[in-house]
């Protein structure tokens, strides 16, 4: 066997890193470096064998010569490149300060190697952060930026991109003239340009003040113009980074993006980048998703630029990398979040089954992204009305995710389930028949508030227009005690959904109102407590609608509501809670409260006149009369209805 082959086994090479002969060490370093470049498995093998601390020892040895520094720095950079465990091991080995130290080595090749290696480390989130409010750190970064070495200035930009987080740091960097220095880098090498764009994004993020200052008198046409120009660069990565930078500017300071006129340009750039192989193509859908998130106008622009079609086309490709797959699903999720035309096209392109399959993907992120995508697709009332999603093909894999090991996936799966639960057709029964309700109710008892909220939300939607049997089936599993405790949950958003659920439960047939009084009135007591004590507006509004629904029942129901909204004379009176709500500055709460009065004074009820008298004595009718010209039309006309009803019984005028 040739000696060289036997000597290249990882164990032997590792041994040789500690050789007293510097020539042997150098040869071993070079060999290891060559073996691990782009080879994750090899990297892990050497990490396991303890090679990293030995390489760190070489770079930290003052007696090492330039070639040893170059090779050890390059090997460390390679270990850190793209592998988190590699970064961790390199940092743990203590190599980081040594790499920083040799940045000031006399030999330019050593400096280059060190800067490149450090750049690899700074690509990872695990890299140490510099504090730009600390003078020493600031001086260090400025010294790097002022370097004539291309790799060093690029490193400086990478460190800024990685470390700059707070508004204070952004300002400090700007005050030191860093933005201008970065601007100069935009005309440098490709790497300098890309690192500079990354750093710009970090310094501008959420800082409209700084953007305005930098943009200057012409709203950035001159200062930011070069970044806009890079949208046309021939390198996809540069185009992507320029897009990210401009998106950051637009999100912090929309007027500047308008002024630069790039809002419309960005969409086609990003859509085109979807076609790119490698990192830019992987990142493009995430950037697109981030850009159009919540912005209907941009979603429409993206639709016009065929974004939905392209995303679906890539979705169809087999063997899509998990990261890219996740990005595609997220981008589709954002694009279909508001516009029915996007959802229609999604359906026409027949990719629903791919998204459904993605619910079973190995990657947690892909499973979540598939749920988000389905959540957007199921936002269509038109499709829900046709019962398009109420079938086992979609529901079964979604329900399986309610037992996913990841809580975030469970929460994400409840999104589309909540929407599908709205289903306006009798097909709704499938939720009970397939045991879905049971699974959702299980999560409504979770200690974690996120699944609890989404589970209650799903139940609320499921209860919407449910028939008697559906309501019964849900309540048997849920129990009135759990429902009462959810109404008084520690989380306000859960209280609101629980009250919405109760509202739906009591709606429909008049018999449904009895649920409020079952088990010694657990529900009405919990609701009344919230209506009286809650400080959150949405909770008060939902609570008032529940009372209003009860007040649409028979005499006993109405009387029960009266007892909760008007304090008994024995308690010394005071302003009734309904009066306080009628005086709310929020028209929705005034509307809900007025409906309650309309129902309590409804002419078909026999004891309406007694109730009107009580309401009048408590000052509620007086309050209603003062609202006859309420600025909200809905309130105004319901107030008139209430007063007409009172007049019918001859009491209103008093």
């Amino acid at each position: 066997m040739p000696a060289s082959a036997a000597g290249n086994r990882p164990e032997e090479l590792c041994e040789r890193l500690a050789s007293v002969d510097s020539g042997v060490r150098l040869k071993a370093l070079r060999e290891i470096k060559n073996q691990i470049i782009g080879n994750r498995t090899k990297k892990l093998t050497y990490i396991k064998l303890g090679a990293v601390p030995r390489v760190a020892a070489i770079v930290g040895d003052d007696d090492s010569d330039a070639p040893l520094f170059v090779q050890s720095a390059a090997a460390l950079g390679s270990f850190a490149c793209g592998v988190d465990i590699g970064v961790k091991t390199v940092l743990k080995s203590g190599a980081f300060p040594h790499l920083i130290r040799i940045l000031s080595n006399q030999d330019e090749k050593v400096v280059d190697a060190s800067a490149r290696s450090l750049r690899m480390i700074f690509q990872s989130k695990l890299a140490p952060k510099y504090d730009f409010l600390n003078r020493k750190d600031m001086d260090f970064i400025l010294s790097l930026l002022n370097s004539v070495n291309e790799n060093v200035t690029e490193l400086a930009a990478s460190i800024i991109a990685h470390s700059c987080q707070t508004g204070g740091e952004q300002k400090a960097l700007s005050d030191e003239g860093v933005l201008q220095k970065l601007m100069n880098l935009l005309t440098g090498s490709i790497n300098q340009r890309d690192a500079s764009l990354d750093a710009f994004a970090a310094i501008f993020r959420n800082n409209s003040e700084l953007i305005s200052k930098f943009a200057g008198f012409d709203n950035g046409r001159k200062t930011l113009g070069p970044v806009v120009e890079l949208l046309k660069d021939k390198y996809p990565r540069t185009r992507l980074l320029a897009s990210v930078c401009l998106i950051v500017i637009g999100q912090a300071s929309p007027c500047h993006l308008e002024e630069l006129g790039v809002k419309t340009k960005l969409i086609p750039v990003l859509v085109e980048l979807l076609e790119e192989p490698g990192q830019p193509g992987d990142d493009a859908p995430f950037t697109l998703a981030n850009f159009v998130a919540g912005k209907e106008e941009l979603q429409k622009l993206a639709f016009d630029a065929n974004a939905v079609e392209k995303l679906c086309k890539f979705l169809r490709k087999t063997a899509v990398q998990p990261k890219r797959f996740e990005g595609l699903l997220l981008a589709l999720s954002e694009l279909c979040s508001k516009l029915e035309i996007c959802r229609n096209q999604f359906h026409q392109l027949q990719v629903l089954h791919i998204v459904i399959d993605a619910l079973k993907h190995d990657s947690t992120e892909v499973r979540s992204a598939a749920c988000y995508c389905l959540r957007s697709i199921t936002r269509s009332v038109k499709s829900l009305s046709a019962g398009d999603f109420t079938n086992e093909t979609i529901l079964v894999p979604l329900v399986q995710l309610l037992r996913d090991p990841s809580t975030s996936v469970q929460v994400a799966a409840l999104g589309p389930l909540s929407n599908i639960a709205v289903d306006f057709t009798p097909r709704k029964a499938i939720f009970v028949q397939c045991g879905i309700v049971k699974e959702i109710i299980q999560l409504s008892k979770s200690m974690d508030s996120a699944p609890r909220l989404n589970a209650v939300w799903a139940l609320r939607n499921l209860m919407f227009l449910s028939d008697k049997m559906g309501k019964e089936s849900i309540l048997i599993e849920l129990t009135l005690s759990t429902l009462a405790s959810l109404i008084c949950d520690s989380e306000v958003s859960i209280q609101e959904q629980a009250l919405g659920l109760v509202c739906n439960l009591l709606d429909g047939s008049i018999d449904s109102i009895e649920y409020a009084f079952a088990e010694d009135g657990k529900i009405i007591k919990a609701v009344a407590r919230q209506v009286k004590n809650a400080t959150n507006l949405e909770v008060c509004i939902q609570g008032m609608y529940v009372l209003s629904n009860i007040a649409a029942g028979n005499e006993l129901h109405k009387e029960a509501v009266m007892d909760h909204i008007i304090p008994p004379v024995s308690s010394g009176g005071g302003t009734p809670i309904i009066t306080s709500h009628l005086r709310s500055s929020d028209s929705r709460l005034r509307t809900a409260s007025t409906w309650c009065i309309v129902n309590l004074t409804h002419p078909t009820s026999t004891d309406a006149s007694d109730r009107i008298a009580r309401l009048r004595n408590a000052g509620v009718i007086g309050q209603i009369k003062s609202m006859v010209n309420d600025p909200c039309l809905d309130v105004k006309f319901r107030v008139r209805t209430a007063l007409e009803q009172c007049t019918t019984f001859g009491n209103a005028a008093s």
Partner: protein
Amino acid sequence: MPVRVLDSSPRSQISGVNQIPAIPPACTLLSVGQTFAGTQNVSSLQKDEAWRVNVRIQGCDLEHGYLCGTMEALNVPFADTPVVTFWEGEIVDIKNYTFFTGKWEATPEDDVKHWSKFQSFSPLLSQVEVDGGKSLDLSNYPFIFMRWKEQYFVNVGTDCGLTIAGFYYVCFSFSDGSINGFYYDPNSSPFQKLELKSTNEGRSGFSFSSYQLQ
């Protein structure tokens, strides 16, 4: 509500959206889950030929001037069961839609002719004749004008012998929650009148339900 087929050529267009800002008025009687019941006079000549109609609101998005729901026609001749259709509505809020339909074979003259059937429209007529009402502020007007267009049959096939080619000019009244409408389809009897009243399903008052999409 579907009408008998006379001519079933499908027609639809994308509506132009007007960007003049206005706040669409909210009304709880037009919120999701609310039901209405009444009649549609199928023939304007034979007053006695009326179909019983139930309507349920299923979706409401005032920001986009959008409303949708189902319409159930109960005593449809030749149909074994009540016929349910899904409709989508355009709220004339000036922001998203004006009084001019601009599609579904309705000319501005057809529009004015139909809107004018509503008494509540008369104060608006002169301005609508000028620009479709683009300069009107309807945010405080006690009536909501809409166009309802049936999109598909929910419980029967398209071969049921009925057509949903036309659309309704609709007017909702804040004061009593009533809905009036006129069906427009150049191939059907003109001015078929839809009259609906808010219902409360045997309750002594009004009841509300709601859902929230995620």
